[in-house]
């Protein structure tokens, strides 16, 4: 083995990635090669220097911008869930991609009854069956509704995963330009945040017909956005 070949193994030696025989052979070489010995010492210093680097915060406070995006107060006021009206106003401003005309079967299944159970599943390991609320439920029995929602939830999760995968492929292949990706990412963040907020609001008011419908609408919008984005990606090739 030439000296260069030994040199190329020095990092692996430092990291303990060499086998016993290789390590012994390299140590024997280094013992007789002042150049490799010097390089090894320098590589050790590089590693030590890297591990001594401290993390530094950003020069400007990013929290106000983050707080604005996620819909919480950035200071001075009590934090918590932002009013529904404020969330809706923000969503209208930042959700710029129009809805698709065609809806998949899973979208049709995302009714208010399903959304209600979404909340229950999201907040409790064993979903309590909802008490009857006038005008808020379908005529289906609770067991039938729960089984139906489990299927809908599974379809929703699969659809979202597949569409996100297609979108990621579009990103990686470069079929989506960076400006488009940023708009899509921002829209998805907004919708995801709205879903989280809706579920949290429903946790406080599980009987709210409006919030149930709002959650279903928001989930539907996410699917529609993903469907549109994943369809758009290959069209650019």
């Amino acid at each position: 083995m030439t000296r260069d070949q030994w040199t190329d193994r020095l990092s692996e030696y430092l990291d303990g990635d060499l086998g016993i025989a290789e390590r012994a052979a390299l140590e024997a070489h280094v013992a007789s090669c002042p150049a490799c010995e010097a390089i090894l010492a320098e590589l050790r210093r590089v590693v030590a220097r890297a591990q001594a680097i401290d993390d530094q915060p950003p020069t400007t406070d990013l929290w106000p911008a983050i707080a604005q995006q996620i819909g919480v107060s950035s200071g001075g006021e009590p934090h918590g869930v932002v009013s529904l009206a404020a969330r809706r106003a923000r969503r209208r401003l930042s959700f710029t991609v129009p809805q698709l005309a065609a809806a998949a079967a899973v979208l049709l299944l995302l009714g208010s009854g399903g959304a209600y159970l979404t909340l229950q599943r999201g907040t409790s390991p064993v979903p309590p069956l909802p008490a009857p609320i006038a005008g808020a439920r379908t005529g289906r029995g609770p067991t039938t509704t729960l089984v139906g929602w489990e299927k809908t939830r599974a379809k929703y999760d699969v659809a979202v995963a597949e569409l996100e995968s297609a979108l990621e492929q579009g990103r990686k292949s470069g079929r989506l330009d960076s400006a488009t990706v940023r708009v899509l990412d921002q829209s998805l963040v907004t919708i995801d945040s709205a879903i989280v907020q809706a579920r949290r609001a429903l946790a406080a008011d599980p009987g709210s017909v409006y919030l149930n419908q709002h959650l279903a609408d928001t989930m539907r919008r996410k699917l529609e956005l993903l469907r549109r984005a994943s369809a758009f990606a290959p069209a650019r090739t």
Partner: protein
Amino acid sequence: MELTTPGVATLSRDPDEPARGAGDAETADVALAASGDGRAFERLYRAHVARVHSLARRMIGFDVADDVTQDVFVRAWTKLGTFRGEAAFGTWLHRLAINVILARRTSLGTERGRYHDGADVLDAVPSRPVVNDLSLDFQEAIGRLPDGAREVFVLHDLEGYKHEEIASMLGIVPGTSKSQLHHARMTLRKHLDR
């Protein structure tokens, strides 16, 4: 001649593990934030922003580090419901940050020519001038490494990931990760303070 024990590159500390007591407070903050408490989430932000921002700065550059850091915390807020507590919150956040950074660098179109394997890599960063120019310090030298070498070096030597993990994150084979790391170290040794 006796050499010191190999394996010194392994991080001896776990930067994601909060101190005892602080860990309980952080666990409580994670639970509060997951239930919609913005103030608790702000505390998590304050505790972890330096690490996330430093990672972004080293991996993708100073210019977009602020923007990427914001993205990381916005996504963390929306995904808190998926945090199971199986690892430290810092570990979960760090992996999320890496995913966001890697997606961003891809969208920036910087993936081409990322993994150089030739000797020319060593020439990509000018060596420390012999005379009186101390402006290029060690961290600047890291920032001027070729993208692939810089990412592997940061993830391995600063963040403590193993080659197999890095290879999975970056979509390369472990051998490439090892090679890039060695190239990075060989370049950076020229920029050590003497």
